[in-house]
């Protein structure tokens, strides 16, 4: 029967190689499965030409935009503090998710002096209300009432 030599000084490297071995074994099986499937269907094993990582007509603004905002939000909390950074970024997330087109309503609203009755500008105001109220409520509830450490 197989034996494993156990030494306390190297015991931290006893288990990880076993898991890595299992992962490599499973990867080989997946590759073999794919090779068989491709051969059966007459398709090339590597087919980068027809490969699409994203769904057809994926949103080229919202997906990269949300990632960029997330990555900027973290250092912004260090720079501005939790509450101001959250108000700013929750507003930006709202604008991004609802649609950037509404930004065009800003000059129109100021020009016509119609703010709430302009649906796009109203949407921006709602984004602002959500970001101020949402961030403040969470800051108060988590940070002040529940005494949870906030960034």
């Amino acid at each position, binding site marked *: *029967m*197989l*034996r*494993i*030599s*156990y030494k*306390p*000084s190297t*015991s*931290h*490297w*006893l*288990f*990880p190689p*076993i*898991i*890595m071995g*299992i*992962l490599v074994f*499973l*990867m080989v*099986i*997946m590759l073999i*499965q794919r090779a068989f499937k491709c051969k059966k269907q007459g398709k090339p094993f590597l087919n980068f030409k027809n490969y699409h*990582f*994203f*769904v057809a007509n*994926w*949103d080229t603004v*919202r*997906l990269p*935009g*949300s*990632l960029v905002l*997330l*990555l900027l*939000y*973290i250092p912004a*909390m*260090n720079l501005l503090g939790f509450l101001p950074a*959250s108000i700013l970024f*929750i507003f930006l*997330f*709202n604008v991004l*998710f*609802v649609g950037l087109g509404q930004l065009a309503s800003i000059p129109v609203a100021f020009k016509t002096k119609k703010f709430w009755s302009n649906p796009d500008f109203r949407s921006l105001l*709602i984004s602002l209300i*959500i*970001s101020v109220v*949402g*961030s403040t409520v*969470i800051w108060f509830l*988590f940070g002040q*009432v*529940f*005494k*949870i*450490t*906030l*960034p």
Partner: protein
Amino acid sequence: MEVFTFGISQLVMSFVGVVIGIIFGALPGMTATMAIAIFLPLTYAYDLTTSLFLLLGLYVGGISGGLIPAILINIPGTPSSICTGFDGYPMAKRGEALRALRIGITASLIGGLISLACLWFFTPPLARVAINFSSIEKFLIILFALTIIAALSKGAMIKGIFAGFLGVLIALVGQFADNNKMRMVPDLFRVDLRMGFQLLPVLIGLFALVQIFQEAETGMKEEHRKMDLNHETRSFSFKDFKGQGFNLLRSGLIGTFVGVLPGVGGSAASLLSYSQAKSMSKHPEKFGTGLIDGLIASEGSNNGLTGGALIPLLSLGIPGDSTTAVLIGAFMLQGIQVGPLFIMNNPEIWRAILIALGLANILMFVIMFYPIKHIVKVINFPKTRIYPVIILLCTVGSYATQNGNMFDVWAMVFFGLVGYVLWKFGFSIPSFLIGFILGDDLEKYFVDSIKGSGGNLATFFSRPIGNVIWVLILISLAYAFYDEYKSNKKAKKAKA
């Protein structure tokens, strides 16, 4: 006898949990798992027993709320409500939406109470058996849990196993407790990753950010939702349940049983219960046309899942589904280990769990049954307005994991991206998370077994209970291969 305090704060926590859970369950794309992941940081502010009222309220509410969009717009709010729309939606179309909703809510309550009874009766004896387990049996039980996850990754078995073991590998990152040495940590992150990746940022990233990325990719489109509850052709009556006793009991028990099996989701419970009700019915041809039997089967089983999934969690330390995997986080955050000794060492928490689950089911019924006409408006909340607030909650939750560490927020974003890529390539995210949760213990019990046997691997076949678990592992793998074969055959047939 130790007793836990039950007062107004526990009641309020349960109420808040159920209400928020219903909202998350009712909004397609948001789940009970997501709700628990986001609200887990609140457990820092309370003791575990009080927190459990919130978390179990979120769990029950999250599962129950899924019936609202399933019945009204034929889109299941949660995977557990997948069959609810089969008969619920035709009922709504013929002007019986309120009746369908109230039948579903009542079935949910009964299913939840059946599973609570099972949890109460079966967890202590199972824990008593497991108490005698040595590190060998504990290692094999965890291995068994991993094979079951694989067995249920229908049509993608190898990918399911791969995701599970990848989760195990990620769990090994950091310091090894036996000799305090680091492994798999780049020098740059030696301080931050000393204790490895924290559970909370990992699960928030996997279950909340991945969902947001998926929605962002498709443009966060809102479905056109229209409902009319003012022109009911037939109203609800408790007489509707006449002759449904066996259906209710069977559905509750099926839900509980499926919940016990690690890695099986609520969708499987709903489908299994629905198909059983159909095959045992005198009029199977009427299923799918708005028959209350199907609605009761689906809703009775998915709430049955709640208690069932807690049985392996509290007796063996193995999560029954992704939601209970997240619940483990709550116990870990309080430094309490779930497993065979849990009930013996924490009788007051065990009693709190039973009461919290019962209370959550009753509150769910009270909150939903009569005010349902108003609650249905929840599905009009636009995702585009909710997701930004969720991002804020995710950030706060991750940051608070280690009492204020920005590295954990970066880890959350990293695992959000990892989860998104895994999903893109068809790997199961819950399998990855369960592997991550069980990875530490898998290693600990493996190394302990090896230490005890002087390195002899035959030790894993030396104990009778261990050999029984080996048989279960083999049965599980054989079933997995059979199921994979059947699924592939079915897929080919459907293509042709």
